[in-house]
């Protein structure tokens, strides 16, 4: 937390980030050394997490912490599941961390409804404006590095270093996709030299509402890597964050809620992919489906694809063996959610 507070003004952001990383790298071993039992870094992580969650500062040691209720993120608000259900999210060590809202079929339908309502406005926003908002998400995420790193380390059972690396990769990915907003039309569009007195140009347009089944891990990077490419082109999304990824997912929702992203553009449902996915795959007001979080070659993947065929949804199949989320994603998750529109007009006087 202290590193964040010490951060200088935005102008020197890059330098600050480097400094933060260095400070963190130096701080981590120190913390491990300070732990009562001398143990490898990875074993010390859960202690560090629970220490952070329940006792953020030494001075507060005598008081009980106020714990956060993890809810869904729908239409810019944070409702509980209409079903009243929740499920326990445990740390990788098995220790209870929090109860997350378990989204229902009705929650999924509500999310699709608000995503549909938000879609025309989001698509109509200028590319510059959409880019600004995606950059803003990156900024807000950067500011919460520590919170995300601790959450990720807790639920994924990875080292703090690895968790920080994932947060950094997610921040960088938001920045990368943000930059695409006003370049997609130039890179994917075309002026077509037709054989006749006509002007004709092709440009990419959003396909509409996209349902995303996020992978369980990497929690934050996986969710970022499916949401950012879908929304940058003007789509709105309903994302399902499964199981333990719920916690970083809800926190990412909080980032979005404070990033000038219009309510409904991104909706995040926590719970079980297998329970929610069939309703989204067969929903006639969903235009596209990303099966990232479903095992490739599974019956579920095939069944969802069959259900999606009813209204000819654009489907991104899961990559065999799972994709490498750290690799340069290229256009692979933007293009499937873009249509090409060609407009013709006669030329003459």
């Amino acid at each position, binding site marked *: 937390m202290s590193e964040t507070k010490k951060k200088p003004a935005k102008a020197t952001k890059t330098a600050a980030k480097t400094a933060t990383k260095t400070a963190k790298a130096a701080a981590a071993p120190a913390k491990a050394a300070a732990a009562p039992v001398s143990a490898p870094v990875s074993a010390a992580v859960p202690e560090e997490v629970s220490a952070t969650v329940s006792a953020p500062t030494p001075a507060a040691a005598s008081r009980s912490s106020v714990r956060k209720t993890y809810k869904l993120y729908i239409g810019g608000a944070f409702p509980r599941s209409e079903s009243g259900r929740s499920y326990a999210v445990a740390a990788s060590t098995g220790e209870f961390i929090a109860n997350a809202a378990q989204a229902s079929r009705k929650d999924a339908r509500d999310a699709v409804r608000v995503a549909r309502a938000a879609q025309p406005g989001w698509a109509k926003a200028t590319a510059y404006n959409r880019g600004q908002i995606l950059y803003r998400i990156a900024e807000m995420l950067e500011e919460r590095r520590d919170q995300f790193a601790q959450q990720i380390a807790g639920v994924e059972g990875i080292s703090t270093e690895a968790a920080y690396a994932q947060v950094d990769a997610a921040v960088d990915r938001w920045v990368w996709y943000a930059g695409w907003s006003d370049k997609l039309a130039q*890179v994917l569009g*075309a002026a*077509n*030299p*037709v*054989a*006749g007195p*006509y002007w*004709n140009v*092709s440009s990419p347009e959003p*396909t509409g509402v996209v349902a995303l089944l996020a992978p369980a891990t990497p929690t934050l990077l996986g969710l970022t890597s499916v949401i950012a490419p879908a929304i940058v082109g003007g789509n709105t999304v309903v994302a399902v964050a499964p199981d333990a990824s719920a916690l970083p997912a809800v926190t990412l929702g909080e980032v979005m809620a404070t990033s000038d992203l219009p309510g409904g553009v991104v909706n995040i449902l926590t719970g079980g992919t297998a329970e929610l996915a069939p309703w989204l795959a067969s929903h006639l007001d969903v*235009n596209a489906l990303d099966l990232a979080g479903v095992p490739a*070659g599974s019956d579920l*993947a*095939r*069944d969802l*694809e*069959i259900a*999606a*065929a*009813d*209204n*000819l949804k*654009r489907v991104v*199949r899961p990559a*065999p063996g799972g994709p490498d989320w750290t690799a340069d994603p*290229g*256009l692979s998750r933007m293009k499937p959610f873009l*249509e*090409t*529109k*060609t*407009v*013709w*007009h*006669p030329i003459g006087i």
Partner: protein
Amino acid sequence: MFEYAPAPESRSVVDLKPSYGLFIDGEFVEGSGSAFKSVNPATEEVLAEVAMADAADVDRAVAAARRAYDEVWSRMPGAERAKYIFRIARLIQERARELAVLESLDNGKPIRESRDVDIPLAAAHFFYYAGWADKLGYANLGPNPRPLGVAGQVIPWNFPLLMLAWKVAPALACGNTVVLKPAETTPLTALLFAEICRQADLPPGVVNIVTGAGATGAAVVSHPGVDKVAFTGSTEVGRMIAKQVAGTSKKVTLELGGKAANLVFDDAPLEQAIEGIVDGIFFNQGHVCCAGSRLLVQESVAEEVVDRLRERMKTLRVGDPLDKNTDIGAINSAEQLARIRTLTEAGEAEGATRWSPPCELPERGFFFAPTIFTGVSQAHRIAREEIFGPVLSVLTFRTPAEAVEKANNTAYGLSAGVWTDKGSRILWLAQRMRAGVVWANTFNRFDPTSPFGGYKESGYGREGGRHGLEAYLDV
């Protein structure tokens, strides 16, 4: 209306054989299924017997395509592939008249259209994609574009040779080999194309043509040796294909149905708009997936537009497709004629007003008079379902916002038309139309350089242009 003397194109240029086989591995071979007949829809005369490919034949064709892919075509430098495709383009031009007459005989479309639209555009597609074969790295699709393998292609009966060109030209340019199934009612120009492939010395197996009906198409689509599926046809069949390939690694593009809105504003140049409306719905007997079958007219000019349209429709000549004066030829099949009749009867039953110009239809053959319906509501079947015939539904609107709302109120999203004199309004509307092609102050324009394909339930993927390459590349 002037009386024109008949001006029939001679059919002597076409040398029809009594029977045709399948084209597999560079040879014409017998099919295993029972042969079927292709008829001239304008006379109901049997043109030829055509072999029916069964699953075993499809298997042979896919094996030939795979061998040609592995051993020859995918290894050949793009510059060499380009020359074969270029040869094919030239051969289509050289045999244009023969192809046009055969197309009109088998399909029923007016010779004016097969001669001036279908065949020249088919050649143009081969020219366009020939030029891409050695430039794929410049297509801006990815750093290392590679072919997919064997493409299974199933095409419809409305533009038999043109749809073949849309599918075969980009597939070959990208280094794929193909197994193509033409429609059951219009296989003949595809078989003449097979001869053209031989004249071009295209290596055996690069193009294979399997004739047959739905079962043959299903065998092509579901064959495990097919890496890419390309289909043009009805949304219903497209859905089936999407389900068939679920869970596989096959790449798929679908060009499906449409119910295009053609919007006419009160400031539109009406003379041109009327021509555009006629072109939009009566071109190719309305057998066009992007036909402007829902006319949306601003209320203030609706009466005038409909009156003028009726006057114009009185001058349309319906009849012998081979007559150079014919505007509207034959409906492609008895089955399609029955479907058009069913839907137009539903239009009347649901309360819309039907009108056709007085015209005498030939006694034999499958013909349907150009028809418009006024007083159509959005809920009517004729406003929602694709009719695929020369039938126009007229609706009205008051404001641009209402026009957009009504135009987009369909599960389809292939095309749209806008007629207005105001440039800013054109751009405003073009942005809001949920359709893959928007024609402003024109309609039904096609060009090999221009991507074509649908939004929503009109399918996915694009054909034509740089975008059309992506369907045949691993990028």
